[in-house]
């Protein structure tokens, strides 16, 4: 599921680059697992590891027990942050299967300076 969204981002990477937007994926996966996923799926944008869910909890995105074997993971969420570190747009989906689309985010590029 998550891969459907990430694959869409990768496919639109040229448009993101052009818009000056850097996509960054964050999950509880280890750097090693992220590396394998990137190799397997051909992702070229950065993947960050929050194995201790520190950032995920600080952002209030923790989905308790929803991971494999009841581990805590991040709920799906997207934040568009401008160069001053201010949130310009966010998407907290109410349905796991409904995700932000690349064109939806690129539409918001004008909110950035």
């Amino acid at each position, binding site marked *: *599921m*998550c891969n*459907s*969204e*990430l694959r869409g*981002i990768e496919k639109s990477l040229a448009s*993101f*680059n052009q818009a*000056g*937007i*850097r996509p*960054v*994926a*964050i*999950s*509880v*996966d280890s*750097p090693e697992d992220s*590396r394998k996923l*990137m190799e397997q799926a051909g992702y070229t944008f*950065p*993947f*960050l590891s*929050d194995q201790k869910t*520190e*950032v*995920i909890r600080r*952002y*209030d*995105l*923790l*989905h*308790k027990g929803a991971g*494999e074997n009841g581990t805590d*993971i*991040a*709920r799906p*969420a*997207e*934040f*568009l*942050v*401008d*160069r001053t*570190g*201010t*949130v*310009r*747009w*966010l998407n907290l989906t*109410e*349905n*796991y*299967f*409904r*995700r932000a*689309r690349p064109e939806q985010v690129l539409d918001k*590029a004008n909110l*950035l*300076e």
Partner: protein
Amino acid sequence: MNVRQINWPLWAGVLLTLIAGFSYIAVFIWFPITRDFPWVNLLMFAVAAVFLWLGLRRGFARDRAHPTRSKIVASVLTTFSVLIIALFLFSYFVFARWLPPSTGAPQVGQKIPEFTLPDSSGRQVSLNELLTTPIEGKPPKGVLLIFYRGYW
């Protein structure tokens, strides 16, 4: 066995139910237009339901060569199919909505808390670095943070 005795609508309904269920995960999840709302799968389920209804009626018809067997097969397969349809509806319309409300998440206009996390090569990367490292020679206008469940 006489081919004409086979309950075709019943089997078509079962097959279509299975295809409708599995094709969401296998195919339609990859396209936002069929992923965000599974309308293709719901349409297939609707058609499958019509076949199952016809199959059930045929299974309980009086002219069956093996009336008892025919009724049992029709009942069991219809129940099985209805359970698959129910499971799908539950997964999409109920289970998929069991997400934390995240009311404390950073809001529009707020500064997002700074962080430093290791990337896939283990190198520590800060948000500030992501916001300042040039993209194709130009300073970035912003960063899109995508939180996802992880590889499984």
